[in-house]
C-alpha cells in the first residue's frame, strides 16, 4: 500500500498499538475486518502529503500465458512498489486482493467499491502489470 517499508512499519505498529489499547479497554468493534479498514485509512493518511500517483494512460497488454515465468523473475519488493504506485482506490483493491487475498465480497466491503469498479481495477491492473512485465522482460513473442 505504501511502497516504503519504514512507513509501512510505522502504520503497522500504530494500528496494532491502537488495537491493543482498545482491546484492553474492552472497546474492540464487533464489525469484521475493522483492523484492515483502520490500517487502510492509516496508509492513505500516511501518503496524503506525498506526491500522489496520477491516473495516466498506461500501456495495457492482455495477460499472457508466459506471465507466470515473467512474474517469477520479479523481486517481491518491485511488485510491492508497483502496487503502491497505483492511484487509490485501485491501489487498495490490488493490495487487498493480492497481498491479503481477500475474496471479492470482502474487498468490496473494505474498499467501499462496486463490483464493476473492482472488476475494472483488477482487470486494468493485470493488463498494466503485463505491459510493464513485457517492457521489463521482453521475451514475449509478438503475434
Amino acid at each position, binding site marked *: 500500500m505504501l511502497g516504503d517499508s519504514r512507513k509501512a*512499519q510505522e502504520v503497522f505498529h500504530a494500528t496494532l498499538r491502537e488495537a491493543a489499547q482498545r482491546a484492553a479497554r474492552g472497546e474492540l468493534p464487533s464489525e469484521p475486518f475493522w483492523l484492515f479498514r483502520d490500517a487502510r485509512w492509516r496508509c492513505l493518511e500516511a501518503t496524503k502529503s506525498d506526491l500522489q500517483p496520477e491516473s495516466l494512460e498506461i500501456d495495457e497488454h492482455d495477460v499472457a500465458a508466459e506471465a507466470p515465468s515473467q*512474474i*517469477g523473475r520479479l523481486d517481491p519488493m518491485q511488485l510491492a512498489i508497483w502496487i503502491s504506485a497505483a492511484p487509490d482506490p485501485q491501489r487498495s483493491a490490488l493490495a487487498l486482493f*493480492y497481498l491479503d*487475498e481477500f475474496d*471479492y465480497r470482502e474487498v468490496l466491503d473494505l474498499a467501499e467499491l462496486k*463490483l464493476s469498479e473492482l*472488476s475494472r481495477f483488477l482487470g486494468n491492473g493485470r493488463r498494466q502489470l503485463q505491459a510493464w512485465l513485457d517492457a521489463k522482460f521482453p521475451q514475449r513473442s509478438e503475434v
Partner: protein
Amino acid sequence: MKLLSSMRSQRALLNCAPISARQSADRSMRSAISRGDGSAEFTNQQNFDRAVARLVRLIPIPAESAEWFSEKDLVPTSRLTWKKMVRNPAVVAISIAVAVIAGVFVFNFLGHLNDFPGSATARKLLGVAASTRPVMLDPVNAEAGTLSDLFFMKHGLEHYDVPEEFADFVTIGCRVFEDDESRRIAQIWVSEKRMQFFLFPAERDSKTGAALRFPGWRYVHQEGWTGAVTEHNGVCFMAAMRGHDKDLEPYLKPADK
C-alpha cells in the same frame, strides 16, 4: 439487453475470481467460474494471479513486525471477572427472570402449603359469602343445629350437620344451591358477627370414591374473608366471616385447633 447485462456481470465476476480454490466463493461466483473455466483467457488470468500470490508470499516481513506475532498474547484479553459478569445485561436479565420464576414458585408453594382436601371449594365459597346478600336466602329464625333436619327432609341432604361449636347460633336465613360442578351446597346466615356457614360434599378419591378426610379445623383465606373448615361423615362444614384466623379461633374447640 438482459443477456448483455448478464454477460457483463459474469465478466466482472470472473475478473474478481478467487486466487486459490481454498477461498470460499458464493453461488454467482461459482457459476461464473464454471462458465469461464477452460477458456484461455481465464486460465491465463488464474495463472497470473497465482504467480503474483506466490511472489507476495516472498515479501520479507521485517523482524520488528514479526515480533508482534511471536508473542502468545498479541492483544491482552480482558479477564472475565465476577463484577463484569454480574453487570452483563444478559446475566442481569436472566437473573431477574429466575428471581421472578422463583418468587412465583415460592408464592404458590406457600399458598398451597396449608391446602387440604376441599380447600379449593372452600375458597370459592368464601367468594360466594362475600357476594351474598340476606335477601338471597330464605328467612329462617332457628338454631343452626336444627337445620340438619330441614336439609334432609326438604333437600335430601344427609349428614349436612352443623358442628356443636356453632349449633346454638341463631340463623337469619338459609338456602341450598348447586355450584359450577353441580355439587349441592347448603348456606346458612347467622346473626353472630354476620357469620355464614357452608356445608358441602367432601372431596373424594377419584379411584375409590371414598371421602378424603382430614382431622380438626383448617383455615382458608380469600379476599379478606377467613373460613374454618372441618370434615365429618363425608361432608365439609365451613364457618366463614370477614376477618382473620384470630376472629374465628374463639369459636373453635381448643383441642381441635
